[in-house]
């Protein structure tokens, strides 16, 4: 693996995890809504930028390396489902993450007061944040399964 792909893979994984943790912290803070607007915005935008960079790094790696080197190994091995089920799902579901996270960050930016005062509105936003966290968790788990499938 060349240095470029190595850097892309490391960036994809580490920023993906940072994004997942930032989404989790955003959900955690939305539950009680005691955090300041700055704090909530910091974590939601951290999640957005992490997913975005992870998205491009992973996308480039997938396009230029995974398809020609890793995928054939998985498909020939005994863990074909790692690609056929998890990578196929991951590469489609992953597309939603940056957009959903940006939506959440924009809601926090413009509707912070409403989030504090209207509990039913806050609950809908919390559900969005939890869904983002769940998708990120699913993608993380899929990533481990796909990587392990190349035996």
């Amino acid at each position: 693996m060349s240095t470029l792909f190595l850097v892309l893979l490391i960036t994809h994984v580490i920023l993906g995890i940072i994004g997942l943790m930032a989404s989790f912290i955003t959900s955690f803070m939305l539950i009680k809504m005691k955090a300041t607007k700055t704090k909530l915005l910091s974590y939601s935008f951290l999640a957005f930028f992490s997913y975005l960079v992870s998205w491009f790094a992973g996308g480039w790696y997938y396009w230029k390396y995974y398809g020609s080197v890793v995928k054939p190994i998985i498909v020939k091995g005994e863990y074909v489902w790692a690609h056929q089920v998890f990578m196929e799902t991951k590469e489609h579901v992953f597309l939603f993450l940056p957009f959903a996270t940006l939506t959440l960050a924009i809601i926090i930016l413009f509707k912070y007061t409403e989030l504090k005062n209207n509990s039913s509105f806050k609950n809908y936003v919390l559900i969005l944040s939890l869904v983002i966290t769940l998708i990120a968790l699913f993608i993380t788990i899929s990533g481990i399964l796909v990587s392990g499938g190349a035996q």
Partner: protein
Amino acid sequence: MDIGLLLVLVHLVGTIFGVGGATMIEVHLNQALKDSLVSKDESAILALDYKIVRVGLILAILSGFGFLLNFKLEGEVENLYSPVLWAKLLIVIIIAINTLLLQARKISLYWGASFSFVSWWTAAILGMLTLEDVTVGALVGEGFLPIFSSIIIIYLVAVAIGSVVLHLMRTKVTKKII
């Protein structure tokens, strides 16, 4: 410094913070609840304990994924299908869900404290046993499912026992000692 050694060190520090913090939460919570009233000072100490656990969790997760990345880059991808690794991952996910439920007050202190305390100790013990290459494979048979399900069953039994023991400590022992 070797990247593997650095990851082990960070993972150890994270685990020490997590297990230590979770233990101190129980100790301080017992002390705080003995008069059924959590004072401002006690609340501040508990907030510090929670912070330590969170720092531990972040360090343990980041270094944990560092390990996974290292397995991939070193070509040891078969380690990514280790049942012990997946049991630890599941326990970390349970710790995270439990944190959200406790924050939303959707889980009682009886179960929440037990899940937190026992999960941290189980993850740490699993990590130590993996270092010494000790698994339940010799007892339940090799293969992913028998080992994974045995660890999870043992963990759930430990959570149930832990909830009773922690409750007894909170209601009986602490009031006599402290």
